[in-house]
């Protein structure tokens, strides 16, 4: 019981922050405090996304020089990688050094330019399975169906259909798979891993990457949040200049005085 609660501490933090934020928004009459509550509420969602993507012991999905050198030592010839990149669907180059997600997303590039959107979608869709993995503990927490069941319901990846799949493209989600607890590891992914052609350097599996996508999403959401806060504060400043107050009660009273000559009557319109 306690383990169940403590293991998921991030969700408790998120829920508490969320409720505190929402409560401030609802109960505070001061416009700036409302915005503070709104920000808290949004921040809880950011935390939720980021904790969702975190893998225990995972690092940022960045290839280091060491990775690159190690991979060369594994004896993967440069030409082969290049060949894989440009003839296969994975249209990236094998020379290292760039964010894994870039490579990952780039697969299916050529197909995208051509006609076969669906095909490319199917193929690279399988790569994406790794992203689903860290999530399953919440679904088990939410009950009813265990995580393995959920995982088993996911469509079979089709990695084995792609003999010249790019190793780097696979490594990032694979790293996540290795890191995820055994119970939540989709069986299908194991199969895919074993049937992969022997181009994956052994050390790639050792590097555990956190899922970068939620971070990217949240960066976007933060930008939106900053913009919202800026607009909200600007409005608060303008309201302060127009009414001389930023307390909601006083604002309402001022509007009612302007319309009916007395503060008490609720304006017919403001009911809505």
């Amino acid at each position, binding site marked *: 019981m306690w383990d169940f609660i403590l293991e998921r501490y991030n969700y408790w933090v998120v829920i508490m922050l969320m409720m505190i934020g929402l409560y401030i928004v609802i109960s505070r009459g001061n416009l700036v405090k409302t915005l503070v509550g709104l920000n808290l509420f949004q921040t809880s969602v950011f935390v939720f996304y980021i904790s969702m993507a975190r893998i225990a012991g995972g690092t940022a999905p960045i290839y280091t020089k060491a990775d690159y050198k190690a991979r060369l030592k594994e004896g993967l010839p440069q030409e082969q990688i290049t060949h894989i990149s440009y003839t296969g669907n994975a249209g990236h180059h094998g020379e290292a050094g760039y964010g894994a997600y870039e490579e990952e997303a780039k697969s299916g590039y050529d197909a995208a330019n051509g006609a076969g959107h669906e095909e490319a979608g199917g193929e690279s869709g399988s790569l994406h399975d790794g992203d689903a993995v860290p999530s399953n503990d919440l679904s088990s927490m939410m009950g009813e169906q265990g995580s393995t069941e959920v995982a088993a319901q996911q469509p079979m990846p089709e990695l084995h259909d792609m003999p010249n799949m790019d190793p780097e493209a696979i490594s990032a989600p694979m790293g996540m798979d290795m890191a995820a607890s055994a119970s939540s590891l989709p069986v299908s992914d194991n199969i895919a891993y074993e049937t992969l052609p022997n181009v994956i350097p052994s050390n790639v599996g050792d590097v555990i990457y956190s899922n970068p996508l939620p971070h990217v999403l949240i960066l976007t959401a933060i930008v939106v949040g900053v913009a919202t806060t800026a607009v909200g504060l600007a409005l*608060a400043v303008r309201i302060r200049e127009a009414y001389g107050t930023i307390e909601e009660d006083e604002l309402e009273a001022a509007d009612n005085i302007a319309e009916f000559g007395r503060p008490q009557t609720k304006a017919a319109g403001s009911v809505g």
Partner: protein
Amino acid sequence: MDFFAQLPALPVVVPFVAAPLALLMPPGRMPWLWATLVSWVSFGLSLLLLEQVWINGPITYAMGGWAAPLGIIYYIDLANALVLSLVTGIAAVVFPYAYNSVRDEINHSQTPGFYTALLLCLAGLTGVTMTGDAFNVFVFLEVSSLATYTLVAMGAGRDRRALTAAFNYLVMGTIGATFFVIGIGLLYQATGTLNMLDLHERLAGQDNRLVKAAFAFIITGLGLKLAMLPLHLWLPPAYTYAPSAITAFLAATATKVAVYIMLRFLFTVFGFDFPFLRVALDFFLVLGIAGMFIASLAAVFQDDVKMLLAYSSVAQIGYMLLGISLGTVDGVAASLIHVVNHAFIKAALFMAVGIVVLRLGSHQLRAFQGLATRMPWTSWGIVVAGLSLVGVPATVGFVSKYALLSAVFAKGGTMEIIAGFLILASSLLAVVYMMRIIKVMLEPVPTEGPFARNIAAPPLMMRLMLWIMVGANIYFGLQAQPVIAIAQKAAATLLGVDSGEAF
């Protein structure tokens, strides 16, 4: 560049590139001309796109060449193409109309910013309509919403209550958007994808609490954005105190796009494979009927015409929800038809009110006294659009009421039959509140009081655009077939009935 291959990107890209340019223009006529031109170009592109989709079926467009499901794709089927054409079409009529009204209501030095925000709003709305990526929906929704907050607040030059209205709208809208993001995050946890079509595939058969929670968050968030009845509180003040042109534009587009995205999530992302959907649909039935009555009743007692029409908008959203709640092709088609037709009706009505505001400086009911003799053309516009709102034959309102009623009776359950009669009953409420306006308009011109002055004839451009919109009310009322055909096919695609084009 292959024009037709790139067509899906352009309705978003054109206003998005044009928006910052408007900021640099000298205040006054230039930014307006620019925005108008852009809206016409976007409209043309949208119509082309609609034609393409009608002929060739759904179009997929990979942004930046990154294929689905990893990249962001634009997925355009008939439902988006229809809503997209609607949004840009309304823009193409309201933007030209805006000039005189904006000159009157907005500080001269703010006009470049105003048109920049307007174009950004347009870009955001088109983006929401076209994207096939769940998170991208959020981004574009917020682009359009943030632009909307500032546009509503710009009504402060005429009435300072625009500021508080915009602030409340901002708080509610942000809560809605954040709920939506939570829902998307939960879906991402459950499936590991953000692509809508991919989500649909992976959600098939998943019926755990995680997905249910995601569903509830998304529906609530979108419900806030589309002013579903108990979540509509932001809408009436925001529409009332926004500048006239903005009210006309928003009433016809913003909530409509939210309805579309609701449809998209209900049927494309979750679909009938998701058992919980039925619960939500029953819920919508109740909320739709409640909205029809409560908001219509509230509208009857308003003394401010814009507030009255804003409540009427909330009521009309009830009709759309009712159509969705049937869960049949006819019902969803009726909902889409009403989305289009109600946009025509409300755009026309708010544009007429805007003309009155320009000349008489008020949108109180008292200002409408004697309008029939003062501004006969505008008054006729209000009458025709009002009849259309009520649902008189030969107007678009009749077409959508007819479609909705036949969908309701075709479904045939007891609840649905009752709902059908309630639709008729609530139409009577629409008669009541429209009659209030028309009655005041027919009274003699006031000889004393603030509205007793002589007024000049309204600018030709505004009247012309009003009558184009009123004409659309009549034209699509008589020639309803194209819209109905597109809506039927779009609904079939959305519900996945037409297996040839569905997923």
